[in-house]
């Protein structure tokens, strides 16, 4: 299990009791349900059980079965019903139990959720959040560890978010729910139990009284550095931060950018970092071919070509199905693999 990286730069009071990533999500859902009558949470086992990862724990008990409820076991049904509920002025937050179990809903997502607003020239908004626990590192059996973000990021009309910190788990889920556009919200499973000294009540206040300046869609520099930039998101952010820490000990200063939002993409923050460092490694867990990582490489070379001292490297999953538990360690981007890629960035040139 990946350990948690340092808390976000936002200067927390040190005495705060740590919250887990899962708690942050749960609290975000509860706060959103409390804030807006139109928010409804549904999916498989999200009601009485509180979800297989307990992200919806206690919501039915607190808000009643009309606000958080179990559905029959059918993902296309869940997504399709969400379309209708959103058309009829609700804000559905739906859970796909695991990444690969969102595939049955693919037609509803790609052909309707992504396209209804465009189809109706803006008349119909679909403020739907599709929560997908994703990626590996938890020793899960087949179909429970896919990194499926590329399918959605490639589909115009969807926003794609993925938090990497406890604070972002809360804030980005609130932003996703408040977004008038559909958001595919990818939750890195292996971070569910990660902790940080975050005061969730304070976050709620901060979010609900936030300044108009938006964080949504923005990347953040998770660690500042000078020699090269690691671009990472979701489950790979802690790995990238760990690599940067190791590199620092070896005298190399790596900047880590946490992309947070894959769609929209924060070209500005990325380009600013790349132009400064001139060297880039993109880290992501999904198979590399035709992936979000490929997009990032393409964008970076399109926009920052003349700043690059070396080709942009990718450290991604292999182009193979996610391995069985006993082999996943060979698949996952590791600190060593990232550092090897950094070493490869033609420092002698």
């Amino acid at each position, binding site marked *: 299990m990946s350990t948690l990286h340092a808390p976000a730069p936002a200067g927390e009071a040190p005495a705060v009791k740590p919250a887990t990533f899962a708690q942050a999500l749960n609290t975000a859902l509860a706060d959103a349900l409390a804030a807006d009558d139109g928010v409804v949470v549904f999916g498989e086992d999200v009601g009485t059980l509180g979800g297989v990862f307990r992200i919806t724990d206690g919501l039915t008990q607190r808000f009643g079965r009309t606000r958080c409820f179990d559905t029959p076991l059918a993902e296309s049904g869940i997504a399709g*019903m969400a379309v*209708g509920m959103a058309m009829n002025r609700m804000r559905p937050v739906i859970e796909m139990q695991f990444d690969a179990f969102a595939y049955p809903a693919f037609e509803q997502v790609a052909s309707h959720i992504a396209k209804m607003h465009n189809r109706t020239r803006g008349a119909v908004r679909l403020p739907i959040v599709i929560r997908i626990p994703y990626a590996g590192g938890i020793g899960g059996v087949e179909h429970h560890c896919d990194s499926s973000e590329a399918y959605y990021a490639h589909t115009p009309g969807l926003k794609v978010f993925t938090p990497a910190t406890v604070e972002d788990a809360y804030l980005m889920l609130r932003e996703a729910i408040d977004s008038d556009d559909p958001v595919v919200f990818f939750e890195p499973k292996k971070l569910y139990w990660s902790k940080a000294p975050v005061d969730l009540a304070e976050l709620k206040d901060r979010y609900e009284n936030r300044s108009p300046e938006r964080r949504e869609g923005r990347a953040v520099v998770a660690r500042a550095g000078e020699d090269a930039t690691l671009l990472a998101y979701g489950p790979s952010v802690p790995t990238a931060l760990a690599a940067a820490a190791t590199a620092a000990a070896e005298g190399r200063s790596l900047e880590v950018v946490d992309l947070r939002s894959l769609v929209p993409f924060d070209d500005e923050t990325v380009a600013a970092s790349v132009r400064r460092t001139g060297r880039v490694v993109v880290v992501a867990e999904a198979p590399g071919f035709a992936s979000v990582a490929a997009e990032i490489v393409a964008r970076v070379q399109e926009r920052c070509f003349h700043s690059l001292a070396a080709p942009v490297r990718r450290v991604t999953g292999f182009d193979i199905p996610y391995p069985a538990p006993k082999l996943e360690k060979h698949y996952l981007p590791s600190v060593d693999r990232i550092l090897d890629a950094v070493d490869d960035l033609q420092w002698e040139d």
Partner: protein
Amino acid sequence: MSQTVETPEDPILRASQTFGITPEQYMLPARGEIRMVDPSGRLLAPEEQGTGPGHEYPLPARDVLLDAYEKLVVGRRVNDQNSALVRQGRMAVYPSSHGQEACQVAAALCLEEGDWLFPTYRDTVAVMTKGVDPLQVMAIFRGEWHGGYDPYEHCVGIQSTPLTTQLLHAVGVAHAAKLRGEDTVVLAMCGDGATSEGDFHEALNFAAVFKLPVVFFVQNNGYAISVPLSQQSAAPSLAHKAVGYGMAGERVDGNDLVALLATLRRAVDLARSESEPLLVEAHTYRMQAHTNADDATRYRDDAEVQEWIAKDPVTRMRAYLGAEGVLDEAAEQRIAAAAEDVASALRDGMNADVEIDPLELFRHVYTEQTPQLAEQEQFLAAELAREETGQ
């Protein structure tokens, strides 16, 4: 609010008690398809109507029937006008419902104001009948945009192309309304072929489990493009699927507007009063090819088509209403003129050119434009500007 989610007593059990039949008998369709007026226009006696205990339908009132007849004639006229416009190259494609207009009209007329309709690509006439401007309905087939009207204006979903997906949207609209305590009924349409899709199953099941007032209305026109019903389903009828979800199913003569209005209205009333879904299958026929791009002679005999001419819903209704004295010469003329007005407005509209700003392509993908799309819009704008200045 949670009160509205649970029905105090199961309506199926209650109904079966009331009618002295088993719940299965209530849920399974009546022995025959419901028919009230035969192809020659003769009103059938109750015992000829295919009904039975728990499956009985009152005859709609005369003014309802006259109004429906007018819509039927207008619908037929619009179907044929559109086919002509396609032949003239004013429209790219049109899936005509010629022959199915009785289903189309009844689907819209059985609903109250505020009730929702979820149609398919073939349901132009139903959409119009629910109030949408025919010209707006046609935008999609004219290639202007992927949807031509605002669904909220008349509570009509965009004509759905991905088969059966719209049934789930209907379920969602009904669910949201029910959670808010509103008594909206939703009627969702699909074809016989579409019943084979997984979403059909999921939609019916969700509606039944959540006890939602959705009427699933299947226009069984015998074909899914070229594939006949016998290769689509081995069930005794499509209405027999209802019992597998715990809901009631009925089949009705889809060319008998009287029977359609009667069964669908009762279905809508039951859906509303009991908050339960129902499945209605109408047996009808698509008289023309799937669309103008299709060649129906490849998969069906003309003899079969000819047989169905004798069952035409318009002539049947005209004969019936004439015989009943509801329709006289003057009314017939007034209705023909009304149909002509609609057709000519449609022609005029289709002959007028539409200007669409290409930059609109980037404006509705998200409610708030992303930086990426802003960039891409600028790219196209610059390209268009260059073209304009001839560079």
